[in-house]
């Protein structure tokens, strides 16, 4: 197996590495789910994955298409009702990290999954908040992963579905019983973290082969870079193998062949 990889694979592997073994992770569908399961199948076998469908500590063989595929329940330690999931497990403070995707993000990590345009007559109606608004505030911290582009990294989100740090970076200040919020954003180009003071996103690591200009061009605001800018470690052979196997298994299953 060669060590060549796509930028999408780079993103997933990097996102997976953010999860530490033993963490409890409330997993969003799509990219976060892919990354979280890769983590579980590689360096973090005891990471605890929780999906909003009520499946606690699940270990799916293939990636779920929906947040509630049968696979999630069959491989879970137990499955609770959805009210219990949100009340006891999320709001109850049992989740270390929420792992989210988004349609739009701004410099303060506010997420928009509601709509493009005006609320009353939207240009594009998106699915909505789902679990994200409370995952973002009740989880200990939040990881975000999405593809980097001017369409997604915007100067102002059209709507704050889910709080990062607010329009001014201060929206968590003084709020009781709230998590730390987003602590890293992983894209196909780089890794970003909020500035400890201002909470504005700062690029801390560029993926191999990616330039500052690549990131600048794909970001809808004047993006800042850390003084000590690092290079993201490349995926190793095993990570790529496990990821590709997982995706192949998943594709076969969802096409109805497995």
């Amino acid at each position, binding site marked *: 197996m060669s060590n060549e990889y796509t930028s999408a694979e780079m993103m997933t592997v990097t996102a997976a590495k953010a999860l530490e073994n033993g963490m409890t992770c409330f997993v969003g569908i799509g990219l976060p789910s892919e990354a979280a399961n890769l983590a579980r199948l590689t360096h973090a076998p005891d990471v605890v994955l929780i999906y909003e469908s009520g499946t606690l500590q699940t270990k799916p063989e293939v990636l779920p298409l929906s947040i509630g595929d049968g696979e999630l329940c069959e491989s879970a330690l137990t499955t609770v009702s959805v009210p219990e999931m949100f009340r006891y497990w999320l709001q109850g403070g049992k989740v270390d990290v929420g792992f989210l995707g988004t349609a739009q993000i701004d410099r303060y990590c506010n997420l928009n999954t509601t709509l493009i345009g005006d609320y009353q007559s939207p240009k594009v109606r998106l*699915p909505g908040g*789902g679990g994200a608004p*409370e995952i973002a505030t009740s989880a200990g911290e939040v990881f975000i992963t999405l593809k980097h582009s001017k369409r997604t990294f915007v100067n102002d989100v059209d709507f704050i579905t889910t709080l990062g740090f607010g329009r001014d970076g201060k929206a968590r200040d003084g709020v009781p019983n709230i998590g730390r919020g987003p602590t890293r954003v992983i894209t196909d180009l780089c890794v970003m973290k909020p500035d400890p003071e201002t909470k504005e996103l700062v690029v801390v690591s560029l993926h191999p082969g990616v330039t500052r200009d690549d990131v600048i061009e794909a970001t809808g605001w004047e993006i800042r870079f850390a003084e000590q800018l690092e290079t993201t470690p490349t995926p190793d052979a095993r990570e790529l193998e496990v990821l590709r196997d997982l995706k192949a298994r998943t594709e076969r299953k969802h096409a109805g062949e497995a």
Partner: protein
Amino acid sequence: MAEFLSLHDAVARYVEDGATVAMEGFTHLIPFAAGHEIIRQGKRDLTLIRMTPDLVYDQLIGAGCAKKLIFSWGGNPGVGSLHRLRDAVEKGWPHKVEIFEHSHAAMACAFEAGAAGLPLAVLRGYVGSELPSVNDQIKYIECPFTGERLAAVPSVRPDVSLVHAQKADRKGNVLVEGIIGVQKEAILAAGKSIVTVEEVVDDLEAGPNACVIPGWAIDAIAVAEKGAYPSYAHGYYPRDNRFYKEWDAIARDRDAFQTWLDDNVYNAGGQA
């Protein structure tokens, strides 16, 4: 006390034009057969409640049954948009649908509160979100012990709830197993309830703490084999993920959708 009815008769008896209707099943056990029966009977002006509208409400909205939608995540899971929902919201086709939008946490708590007979649900929610600015059903209370401000939403108390379950026994007691979502809450919160089941059995063979809903808390039970298809019934058949993907193309186009509806609902008798 649950009465065994045909799905046609159950829907005809309990789902009235203008009613507030919850059809639940979180990805699992989505009551598609019941939804199709509502479409076939041409029900109108419904207020539809569902955490994840999914394809079933895409179909009801596209067929013109809905006036309002109360929801928290309106997509085709893992695939993309609900195009019929979008067409209604963005273009008003077949007519405008008013939306009341929540988060999952709030909807889940609202179902819980409805089952618990309370007028409101209280949660630590919506902090920093702009949803409260577009949904006047989100308010706040102050904790009399700590002074903390907490979100409040009205409880969900539908006129009628429809859910699908694996099986009922001959007394009408129902077992829901696997991903149980808010099915129990939907039934208990509703004025009237209809449960479709895969089969009727002599013995539910349920564990001591399984999710069993007594027959006396249900109004009607209708057998609907594969009644959750293309979603799934744990222990009976898997989710047809392929159909969920195919739906994207069907629902994108008004004509394709109409044709699909004709073929699979209107002209499909009670077996769609």
